[in-house]
Structure formats: structure tokens, C-alpha cells
């Protein structure tokens, strides 16, 4: 097979992988915050439900979760699926999974905040919501950035799991190409792609970390 064709195909897969990556972050980062609220809620029922949700998401393979998200609506509820649902299922599966991880990171960050910050905000008259979004969250973000970076870099590689439900992301494309050309070249190229992708992500995260270093 022509190497150019191969690269073009892989680039297509790469675009899909990047799409999964971007959309997962877009949804899971805020969703994680919501999950954290549940996890730290005063309502015991809500708290235990979120706790269980988090432990399932972190305790079972993402591939399994993807399959359940993809086929679940039909097999469990008899809902008819549409074609476009495959990609949507990938995003839902990833977002739900990563939200659980991000939630735990947020929580550790929030719990590490000194109570003095809350008390100072209360004394100055900030409402609870203002206090959280204006005073606490910006500081939490700085604190948790290294953990978030780790998770984001894991996500780069995890996009390859979308192949479990036959989404044509890079890994799946590379596998197909490897089969068609009976060589390992596509796999190696895919490896290089992932490596570079990771490198770029690490670079961006480092940049953000530096940006946030204006205070300590």
C-alpha cells in the first residue's frame, strides 16, 4: 500500500481521535464538577449514589462501559438507535468515565483548600456561590492542574479504546491498514502519531501551568 494513502487514512483516524479527545474534555470537565457537588453533598442518598457511580466508572474497563452505553439503550430499554449514535455513544461513554476521574481530582483539590479562605469570603459578604466560583475554584484549578494533566495525557491514549465499538479512530484505522498491508508500518506510524499528540498536549498543559504561576 502506498505510504501516502496510508498516512491520509491515518490522518483521518487521527482527526477522529482528536475529536473524541476534545469533546470528552469539553463535557467531562464541567460534568466532573457536577459529580463532585454530588459527592460532597450534604444529602446522604445523593452522596452515596455519586460515590457508587464514581467507583463503578473507575472500577470497570472503559471498553465495557462504551459497549454498555452503545448497546444499552436498545437492549435495556428497547430504544431504536440511529447511525450517528455510535460517535455520540463514544463521547457519552468517555465523558461519563472521565467525569468520575475529574470529580475525584476536583474533590481532592477542594478539600485541600484551607477553611480560612471560606471564612474570609464569608466575612466579606460573598454568597456561597460567589465564594465557590470567585474565590475557591480558581485556586483549586491551580492546585489540581498536575493531576488533570496526567488524566488528560491518559485520555490521549484512551481514545484508542473507542475501537471497542468500532469507531474508526486512529487505532482502529491502523489495525485495519496493518491487516490490509500485512505489515506493522501503520501501527508504528500510529504510535508516532500518539506520541506526538501526547507531546503537544503535555506542552499545552505546561503552558497553562506556567500561565497560572502568576501567584503562589
Amino acid at each position, binding site marked *: 500500500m502506498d505510504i501516502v494513502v496510508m498516512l491520509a487514512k491515518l490522518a483521518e483516524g487521527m482527526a477522529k481521535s482528536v475529536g473524541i479527545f476534545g469533546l470528552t474534555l469539553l463535557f467531562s470537565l464541567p460534568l466532573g464538577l457536577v459529580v463532585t457537588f454530588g459527592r460532597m453533598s450534604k444529602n446522604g442518598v445523593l452522596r452515596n449514589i455519586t460515590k457508587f457511580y464514581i467507583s463503578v466508572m473507575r472500577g470497570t474497563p472503559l471498553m465495557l462501559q462504551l459497549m454498555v452505553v*452503545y*448497546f444499552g*439503550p*436498545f*437492549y435495556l430499554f428497547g*430504544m*431504536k*438507535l*440511529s*447511525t450517528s*449514535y*455510535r460517535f455520540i455513544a463514544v463521547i457519552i461513554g468517555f465523558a461519563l468515565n472521565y467525569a468520575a476521574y475529574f470529580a475525584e481530582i476536583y474533590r481532592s483539590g477542594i478539600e485541600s483548600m484551607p477553611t480560612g479562605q471560606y471564612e474570609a469570603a464569608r466575612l466579606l459578604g460573598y454568597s456561597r456561590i460567589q465564594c465557590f466560583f470567585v474565590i475557591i475554584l480558581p485556586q483549586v484549578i491551580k492546585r489540581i492542574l498536575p493531576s488533570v494533566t496526567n488524566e488528560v495525557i491518559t485520555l490521549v491514549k484512551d481514545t484508542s479504546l473507542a*475501537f*471497542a*465499538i*468500532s469507531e*474508526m479512530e486512529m487505532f*482502529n484505522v491502523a*489495525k*485495519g491498514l*496493518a*491487516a*490490509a498491508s*500485512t505489515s506493522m508500518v501503520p501501527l508504528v506510524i500510529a504510535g508516532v502519531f500518539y506520541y506526538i499528540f501526547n507531546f503537544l498536549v503535555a506542552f499545552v498543559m505546561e503552558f497553562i501551568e506556567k500561565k497560572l504561576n502568576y501567584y503562589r
Partner: protein
Amino acid sequence: GQDKETEKAGETPAKTEAVTEEAKTEAAETEKKTEAAETEKKTEAAETGEETEAGTEEETKSDKKIADKVIAESETKAETGAKTDFKVDKLTVGFDQDFPPMGFIGDDGEYTGFDLELAAEVADRLGAEVVYQPIAWDMKDAELSSGNIDCIWNGFTMTDREDEYTWSEPYMKNDQVFVVRADSGIASEADLAGKVVDVQTDSSAQRALAGMSKLTESFGSLNPVADYNTAFMELEAGAVDAVAMDSVVANYQIEKRGADFNVLDESIAAEEYAIGFKKGNEELRDAVQEKLDEMAADGTLAEISKKWFGEDMTILGK
């Protein structure tokens, strides 16, 4: 043949072994070899706990029969006259476990299926142990050429792939067809325009469709999927409108799932199933082919086919 014998004794997981010519002509030698095979069987049986003494005995007998027959044949067949006997200890069959009824996990939890049963019978007659090796379908070439499996025997389409493997004689006819939901209102290929069609990665349906650009361009999209189970689940769930696949498998799935599916009358391609061996591995092919012919002749093949499909769908020797 001295070193070959020691290799066997050393239990190297050798799959195919050519035996020297002198060994074939003398009955005494054959006797010795079957003895060697027997002892080896025993050690293997001890390991796997699967084979009984009786079974081993029977195999020894059939081994003798093979030897006799090979000798007989070597006199008649001119082109294979030079090599007539061939010894197999183990036949590793590569198959896609998500591909009922050809190969899948049976109700008892063991691998079963039409093709696997054939393979077992052949191995039995060869005096070899059959090993079922499930593989990821799109990795079958790598698995075969790297020697992890001896053959691909899994509703494996020969048509259009003639040059890529060393093939057995085709033993079954098959069509590549479209499966649709009965309520979808799709009745012909023309109705597939704008619809979403699943096809397994690296399958013969995919190959066939690749040459039918006019048809495929009319589709809404052509989705490669990793396995037929996913494809069928997607079809059932409504995520796709049609699956291009083997009619043999389609018919079985439709029956098994008890769901309302239709197979379109127009077939994508007519083709034949055969067993694929690594290119150049003619010795093993010949040995397997011989047993298959034997089974066709004594009705075993038809019997197995009836068991799985309710009718004799095989074409070997007809």
C-alpha cells in the same frame, strides 16, 4: 530422520513435520511411528486432560489406515507420488469467536460450530490434536503467517483471495448478502440508497463491495465494524440499516435471534468457503484435504452439515 525424532521427544510445539521417504514404504516403520505418536499423545493428554485412552487407541488405528491409504494413493497420483505420508501432531485452527454458526462458544461453554466440528473430525482422522484459537479477524494474516495458527477455518471465503493463501478445495457455497430488518421496507439493493451499511473489517463482503463502487456510493455510509456480533447488535438496535455478510451466517443469526430480519434476494457476490493455509504449506493442506474428501465420501460431511443447517450444504465431491 534422527534429529526429527528427538525434536518430537523434546515436545517442541512443532505443528507440521515432514517425514523422510524411507519411513513411508515400510510397514514396520509405520508401526514404530504410530507408537511414537501414541506416547506423545499420552503426555499431551496428561497435560490437557481432554483425551482418553480409548480415543488414543482409535487414533492409532486410524493412523495406520492413513498410512495404508497414503501408500495406495502414492501409486495412483502422479504429481504427489514423491510425498505421500505426512505427520501432524497438532492442528491449530484460527477462527473468529464472534462468528456463529461457524465457530463460537457453545451452550456448554466450549468452542463449537460447523467449521470447528469439521476441523475436529479432520484432526481426529489425522491423529492430531485440534486446538481452537480464537483470533481477531483483522489480524488473521499476521496470526497465520507468524505461525500462531495452522489454518483459517471459519467460513473463510476463497473467492478473490485465491493467490493469498494455499487453499483446500472449496467445501461450501456461500453468498454475500445484505441483511435488513423486516420492518425497514428495504427490499432491494436500490432501496439501500442513503442507508447505513455495516461490513466487517477485512471480510470478503468488504472486498466484494470494494469492487462495486456504484452501489457503495449510493449508501449513506459504509461502516467497517470489528465483528459480526457488533454488526448484528447494531442492526437490531437500529443504529444501521443493513449488514453485508455471509448468507450462511446470516441465516443462522436470523434463526437464532428470532428477530425479524430479511435477506435481500440480490446477492452481492457468490463465493465459496475453503480452508486457508499459509502460502506454501501444501503438505498440511494435502493432508487435511485428503481427510475432507474421505469425510465427503463416507457421508460424515453431510451429516455434520445437517446437524448445523438442517440440510447438506456442502459441495465437496459433488
